């Protein structure tokens, strides 16, 4: 198992970690989820039919693991929301995850973009991360998300528009 894992780790770990991090924006959670991806991959390593590339397979599993995580978070928030007075305490729900230190040395524009990513839907964010942060091609992105290339293009276009609006709002001081 060590050999298979070493191979995966050497080739894909940085990209995998980054993909999940930009989705969940929290390092401890990212570590948990990366670990879960590796476990699933190694458990089904023997059944991997090689019909897709290893990279596509790994990222498809990462996508599922991340979506599972968001579903869980959704349920948890819903449960916590029962009996919660949003009028009075809504501000307490603001995201207080620390920004990563790697961001500190970047321009204000980039830091603002990091915040604006939260305003995209999960699908849009996945496309943005894979296309622009991971520098994957449209075809690779489509394979990982199991979408058509035209769906990737449409989602990418909408995501860019959403980010553009959000950035303009922020720059204009209209942020709520």
């Amino acid at each position, binding site marked *: 198992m060590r050999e298979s*894992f070493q191979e995966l780790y050497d080739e894909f770990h940085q990209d995998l970690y980054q993909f999940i991090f930009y989705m969940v924006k929290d*390092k401890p959670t990212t570590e*948990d989820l*990366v670990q*879960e991806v590796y476990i*699933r991959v190694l*458990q*089904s390593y023997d059944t991997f039919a090689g019909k897709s590339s290893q990279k596509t397979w790994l990222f498809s599993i990462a996508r599922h693991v991340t979506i599972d995580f968001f579903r869980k978070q959704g349920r948890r928030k819903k449960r916590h929301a029962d009996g919660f007075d949003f009028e009075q305490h809504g501000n307490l729900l603001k995201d207080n995850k620390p920004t990563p230190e*790697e961001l500190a*040395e970047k321009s204000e524009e980039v830091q603002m973009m990091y915040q604006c990513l939260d305003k995209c839907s999960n699908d849009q964010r996945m496309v943005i991360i894979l296309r622009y942060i991971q520098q994957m091609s449209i075809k690779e992105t489509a394979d990982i998300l199991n979408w058509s290339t035209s769906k990737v293009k449409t989602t990418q276009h909408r995501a860019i528009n959403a980010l553009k609006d959000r950035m303009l709002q922020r720059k204009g001081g209209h942020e709520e």
Partner: protein
Amino acid sequence: MKKQNDEIEKTLSEMPKINDSRSFDDYYNQISKQVNQRKIRKHAKRGWIIPAITSAAALVLVFIIGLQFINTNQTADEMKTYQSIEDSVDQAETNESANESASSGDAEMAEIEEYNQDGQGNQDMGGASNDDENQQFSMQEVDANSSMVVTQDESQGKQFVTFIIPDNQVQYFAPITVEMNDQDPYEFFNQSRELIMDDEWGLSSDVLSSITFIGMNDQNIPILEMDETELQDGTAIERVAMEVIRYFQYLGHEKVAVRDPNGDPVSLAHVGEVEEVTFENQLKAYKLYQPQSDELFWIEKVLMNGASIEEAIEELKVSEEAFNIKAPVPNNVNIEIEGQDPVLNIRFLNPEQLAESTEIPYIIESILLTAKSFGYEQVDFNNLGMTQVGPYQLDEPVQVPAYINPR
């Protein structure tokens, strides 16, 4: 506008690389520990097999010895009488079963022949015209004519239960239906781990060994005991636990109460403390899962909240080869949809494409199952160019199935 878009794209490409502070060894140690734990649990779960086989063998032996003992105490006359009664019963049974098999066999053979004639011709034509490998099935290994659901008619007067089991990569869930014989459906849940053949079916039922039905509370809500120590491996195992308990949703419950072995709320790492789980109605698309050449299941793909039936039907055209998931509807089949609750109207726009498809039974059942998850009770299939496919009479609206993946 273009300039602004370019700026956004440029800023995105400048986003920082995020570094992981954990080392390879850290990950490896954690992962190998967890993989081993899961393996141990799996082996532990299989511990029932040998005692069960031994007990069964012992029972058979006792039965055979008992029969001989009874026989040796019979007088010759009595034995003769018994023999003649047995002979006549045997003869009657043989005749009856011969008649039955002849009549059902004839009907079945005629149906299979009719389908095979169509199917063979179509397969040949399809081979010449359809190059999309993703849409091909191992039709020679899986009998396309055999339905993979229990229709409403077939379910009359019988009792079924449905287990929800993840595939072996824990990406999707397969509902597996089992017919019961006078057992208590609630107690039956606790036997589930003995019924699911993980390796043969490409499923992973390990989590069931951590969940036990222990009774009903005073509000008639099932109480489940969960061994939370077995559910700490990550978000996936928690999700699996939440899905497998939908067994009780199939029994008509909107929620279940859960507790740990000490009677306290169940504490899960990612979900938090849970005392009660309320089942949400999920919108689903049903695709084919073929873990091995001779096993085929319907598997559920849960869709996003608010998904439309049109999106769900489109989803039926998407294969996921990496997970052995096959699209039941070929990509070149165009479908127009008109939903008038409780009947979903499906119109095939290019039936000539469909006539070349060997997968029509899959198309029909996947649409029926998907429509059911959207609350439709019947589906009216139009412009299909045929009036009967498998058990479905298509010149009138078809009722959605009662159960799925009978085993």
